[in-house]
């Protein structure tokens, strides 16, 4: 029982990490109807920027404090992500506005490849560390109820809290601010939003910047855990099933979807894995998404997809 709970918690934590990336997907899809295959590349790019800036700033400006380095690096990385968002909107999105979904999807794939190449050219392609002071020792809890207690990763716990915090911040942003309202209008109907004077281009830059922000947060957490390396962009491929489960237009859905996928993956690997030869994690998330697509395509919290004649 103790082992089951450990696995469950472990899975839930990983799921929160997936959600961090998935939130970026949902943001962009909600506001511009674009399925951003480049989200993973954005996470990697942001993480690279953060890692390298944190390394370089002390050298360039001659100070020692790791905390100061991290703060400056965060600001710099965020600035870079806003620049990336602006460039993407300016050079790619605005020229592809009327194309079909598959074209936009392919464009984001192209952007992903481009970001990969640029990131590694600018920032190098070794494995880099991000050190934001995340506690690395695991936590032992519930020693009274279970023999030896349950092993929880503090790092993952903090990640979960950060993800939850991000969701709250975003929810407030969308519901309470004028910009958030504009974003929701754009997500609903581009042309209607334009006709009441909402500046579409600026909104898209804002959205991609916010997505860039969530990519940066995700990048920091994942990078701190795994080190910043190329495989990070592949993690994003896991985020797709998360948004399918949660619903492409729902941020809370991204959290729930992430939890389900994370827990499901870990549990199925431990309990189903031995029966099927192991390595279930490769496809579990996707097959689960497939089942959802057949039964409830809009996910748990997404809007129903209506086909008009």
């Amino acid at each position: 029982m103790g082992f089951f709970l450990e696995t469950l918690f472990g899975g839930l934590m990983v799921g929160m990490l997936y959600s961090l990336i998935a939130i970026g997907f949902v943001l962009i899809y909600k506001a511009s109807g674009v399925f951003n295959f480049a989200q993973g590349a954005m996470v990697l790019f942001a993480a690279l920027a953060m890692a390298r800036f944190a390394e370089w700033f002390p050298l360039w400006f001659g100070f020692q404090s790791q905390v100061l380095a991290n703060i400056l690096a965060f600001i710099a990385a965020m600035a870079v992500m806003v620049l990336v968002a602006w460039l993407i909107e300016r050079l790619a999105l605005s020229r592809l506005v009327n194309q079909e979904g598959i074209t936009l999807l392919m464009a984001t794939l192209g952007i992903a490849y481009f970001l990969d190449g640029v990131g590694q050219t600018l920032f190098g392609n070794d494995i880099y560390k991000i050190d934001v002071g995340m506690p690395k020792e695991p936590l032992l809890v519930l020693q009274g109820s279970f023999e030896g207690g349950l092993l929880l990763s503090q790092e993952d716990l903090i990640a979960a809290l950060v993800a939850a915090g991000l969701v709250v911040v975003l929810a407030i942003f969308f519901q309470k601010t004028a910009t958030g309202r504009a974003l929701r209008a754009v997500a609903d109907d581009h042309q209607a939003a334009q006709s009441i004077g909402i500046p579409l281009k600026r909104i898209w830059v804002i959205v991609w910047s916010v997505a860039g922000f969530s990519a940066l947060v995700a990048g920091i957490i994942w990078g701190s855990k795994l080190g910043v390396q190329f495989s990070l962009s592949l993690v994003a491929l896991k985020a797709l099933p998360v948004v399918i489960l949660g619903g492409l237009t729902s941020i809370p859905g991204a959290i729930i979807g992430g939890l389900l996928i994370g827990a499901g993956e870990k549990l199925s690997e431990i309990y189903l894995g031995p029966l099927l030869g192991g390595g279930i994690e490769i496809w579990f998330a996707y097959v689960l998404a497939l089942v959802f697509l057949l039964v409830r395509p809009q996910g748990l919290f997404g809007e129903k997809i209506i086909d008009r004649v």
Partner: protein
Amino acid sequence: MFYRENGQFKSSYRADQQIFPIAQDRIAIALLLLVAFVVVPLGVSDYWMRAILTPFLILSLAALGLNILVGYCGQISLGTGAFMAVGAYAAYNFHVRIDGMPLIASMLLGGLCATLIGVLFGIPSLRIKGLYLAVATLAAQFFTDWAFLRIQWFTNNSSSGSVSVAGLNVLGMPIESAVQKYIFCLVVVVVFALLAKNLVRSAIGREWMAMRDMDVAAAVIGIRPVYAKLTAFAVSSFIVGVAGALWGFIHLGAWEPAAFSIDRSFQLLFMVIIGGLGSIMGSFFGAAFIVLLPLFLNQLPAWLGFSISTALASHLETMIFGALIVFFLIVEPHGLARLWSTAKEKLRLWPFPH
């Protein structure tokens, strides 16, 4: 002046419906086939045939299959690598487990297995479309990645999923040298291209395009969406499966599941988009572009007179690749095939401006 259709009147519907109604096109194709079948084997180096032309042919075939699904029938698929893998591994199993199985039979049977899997994973297309369907096809990709890695039976109990074939021959003629492999692939590709072209200009092709353009109206005409979509998946997967068998048997000789990974799926989709959705010729253009681009980018620094580290070179390649994809999608979303037909239209008027 040269490309005029003046005087080329068709007096029967049969003549009007030829694949190449314009005489100059027929001559051009005949020349192209002559070059492909005769000039290349005689004049081109083994390296070029092995490393460039043969992979180009096989990938064109796969792109052709994918184009039928995505370009003609409008169903997004990101799992093409999976269907290639099924074709390759199935053909492998037929080849090694059944003594004396002819190569062509193994390949065709491999294609049929890919068809079955393709239809299976095509079933979601009956309920979902667009990006949702793309995610469903990714399930196929990852599942087959795992299956050929972990299920020992598929790979004749190889532990890492890697297999190899040797001593290939067709009716006693060996398929060993670069020329032999090239000609074999060329023949297969030409035959399949012809069959595919026939399909897309027949009733089933119109059904596929109707589903792509407006599926509700298609139902009202009496087109069965289920039949149209599943046949698109079936035909597409068959062609892709045969291409996969060719890739494994002829081009690689020995392979493991990573040869058919998601990168391959993306590569094929890029070929189809850049080459031109809904165009048989576009598949060839796209394949040529994608195959030649890395070569070109590789040689460019040398031509320009400076050298860069291989790591940097590969990063730059990725960058430029991505940028070119986006550039293409902006400038000509209908791909090289559209550029080609626009050029031909201008050629019809040349030397007059309009």
